[in-house]
């Protein structure tokens, strides 16, 4: 038996080597976006509520795919009259050739039975008829509008995850912001697309700089009370404020590291400097030590080994970086008025609000910029559109949310990280200082 095995060992090894698949290709001038068609899902039941939920589902799915920034969504006016609800109904040539000329097709059906909504969804590579299926999913939940929205978000995220190279979609992420629509500046939250806006805090004072923890369980922010500006903490596990240590002096702009530490600006020792504490508020230690005010720290979200912050030590505020222990201080911006740095999820870029020409006779505008940390090269993302401030990255690194006054009042806006596809998310009252959840 052993001899038999030895005889065939080379062939077994060869066979295993042959099973190795090779892919060959290349990169040059760039890549076209995936041309995706999202057919309206078909009703799978005759329930009276089916049409309402189906419309919600189709609208949310379309918006999520459109907002993803990685697809070239085929206009619905190009679609064939017969839209599929099941794999057997897909007419490949009709979708893969002009006018839709799509590469991918998302389709499925939605039905209601016994108070439950059930959704079946597929993603097909319609130009690969031999092996078309990329994705097939089934969801079931209570037959409510909110649950249907969540299902649509999840299916969109699955598509984005598959075709976006393993980067999770943002359709289920949240945005935290400051709103004064109640008369006080309170912390609010909403879905990434501006839906489901709800108030979190009711402190009746001024609350600023909301920052959600990496695991999404707590929200740190700064608020003024009898003792002055302090770091406050809201728990999503308890749905209420929880106690947090008081540091004395003025404590502002908390920022979470990916491993759960918090950096913030504190004047407990006289001048506003950057301090770091652990997630429970203990082990406070100073990272900067100078007279110039140091504020708005932001951690490198990939490595947690660096912190960028704003310092006025040379006059006008500029962006600096340092190691997380306070060493290796470097200045990134060279002129103007630079504030509100925010580190990208891949650790490669900073986005900031910058008035590059500042001073008498130089009518500069506050715009959002993107800076490559390594090369210090920058790109201006907003142009000629009023004051823009407080940019913050989405967890997928494809979007930036920011505050803008372009509509006549301060509102929350979103755009792709290249400055395109700008959309307004809030409309009511004044809304500022947005912060995107980590996932």
């Amino acid at each position, binding site marked *: 038996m052993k001899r038999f095995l030895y005889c065939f060992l080379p062939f077994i090894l060869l066979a295993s080597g*042959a*099973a*190795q*698949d*090779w*892919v*060959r*290709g*290349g*990169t*040059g*001038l*760039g*890549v*076209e976006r*995936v*041309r995706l068609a999202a057919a309206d899902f078909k009703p799978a039941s005759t329930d009276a509520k089916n049409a309402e939920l189906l419309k919600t589902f189709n609208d949310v799915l379309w918006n999520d795919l459109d907002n993803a920034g*990685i697809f070239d969504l085929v206009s619905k006016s190009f679609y064939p009259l017969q839209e599929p609800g099941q794999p057997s109904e897909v007419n490949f040539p009709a979708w*893969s*050739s*002009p006018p839709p*000329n799509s*590469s*991918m097709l998302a389709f499925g059906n939605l039905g209601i039975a016994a108070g439950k909504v059930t959704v079946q969804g597929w993603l097909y*590579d319609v*130009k*690969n008829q*031999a*092996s078309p299926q*990329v994705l097939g999913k089934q969801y079931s939940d209570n037959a409510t509008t909110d649950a249907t929205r969540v299902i649509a978000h999840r299916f969109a995220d699955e598509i984005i*995850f*598959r*075709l*976006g*190279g*393993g*980067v999770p979609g943002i359709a289920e992420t949240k945005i935290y912001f400051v709103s004064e629509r109640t008369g006080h500046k309170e912390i609010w939250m909403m879905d990434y697309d501006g839906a489901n806006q709800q108030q979190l805090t009711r402190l009746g004072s001024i609350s600023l700089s909301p920052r959600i923890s990496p695991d999404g369980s707590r929200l740190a922010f700064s608020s003024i009370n009898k003792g002055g500006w302090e770091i406050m903490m809201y728990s999503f596990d308890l749905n209420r404020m929880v106690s947090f240590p008081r540091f004395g002096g003025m404590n502002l702009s908390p920022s979470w590291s990916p491993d759960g530490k918090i950096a913030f600006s504190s004047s407990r020792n006289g001048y506003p400097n950057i301090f770091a504490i652990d997630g429970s508020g203990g082990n406070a230690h100073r990272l900067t030590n100078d007279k110039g005010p140091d504020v708005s720290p932001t951690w490198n979200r990939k490595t947690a080994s660096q912190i960028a912050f704003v310092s006025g030590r040379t006059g006008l505020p500029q962006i600096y970086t340092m190691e997380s222990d306070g060493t290796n201080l470097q200045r990134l911006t060279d002129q103007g008025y630079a504030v509100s740095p925010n580190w990208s999820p*891949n650790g*490669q870029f900073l986005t900031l609000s910058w008035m590059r020409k500042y001073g008498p006779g130089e009518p500069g505008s506050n715009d959002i910029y993107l800076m490559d940390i390594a*090369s210090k*090269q920058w790109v201006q993302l907003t142009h000629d559109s009023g004051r823009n401030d407080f940019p913050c990255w989405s967890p997928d690194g494809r979007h930036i949310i920011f505050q803008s006054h372009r509509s006549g009042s301060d509102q929350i806006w979103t755009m792709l990280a290249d400055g395109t596809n700008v959309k307004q998310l809030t409309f009511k009252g004044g809304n500022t200082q947005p912060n995107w959840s980590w996932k």
Partner: protein
Amino acid sequence: MAAITDIYSERAQLRRPLAWSLGLHLAFTGFVVFYAVFINGFHGTGWGSGGGGDAMGATLVSAVPLPANPAQTTNVLATESKGLAKPEPAVQEKEPEAIPIPDKDTKTKVKPAPVKSATQRKPEPVPPESNQIPYGEGGPVSKPYSMSAGGATGGFEFPGGGGDFGTRYAWYVHVIQQKVSDNWLKYEVDPRITDAHRVFLIFDVMRDGHPTNVQVEQSSGVPSLDQSAVRALQRIDTFGPLPSDYSGTKISVEWWFDYSKK
């Protein structure tokens, strides 16, 4: 003084072994000549004379009856744009002198066009449109989408012998191209490089989608370009998990990076 004496005595002791060595070398050379001429020369056969043992003889034939390709591609353009392919040039009536041999190695570096001297006054040739690829270099159009999606750069090739991953999961190959392109920072290449260069990398994509074993397979000759390509792969955490119905544990990827300042 004692040391000098020792050296002279060592030299004296070498004479006998040297003589033996010379004699044995001569004897061995003589044996080889004798064997070649008188023993092997009478019944040995030269290479290529055929018929020996179980080896298979190969003879040249005038033609090989290969089966015709059953799938006739219509080559219909898939987009409303003019596309990337030029029409086939008119066939010239000319007797072929020999059977053309296709290029075996397509990895030849892109060479700059030879510079013509200023004294040659020829009519200025019409430059091709920037989004066109000369006939025969653009690949077929009627392929699964991701094989033609990157048409501006030549798209993908899936030569035989490497499994059918590329054809079954063409969308995944497009994901690889998208992420590599997104993470390749061309400003890392030496700005003094103005002509076209191409570097080949090989790497593996594991089941969970992360790239590993990144190596330069064929250098471009420009170290900064090679390095920028490797860094592009190092920046990528994952391409996304391999398709769930794919049975393999990893795929191997050969990827080229074309750099041109144009």
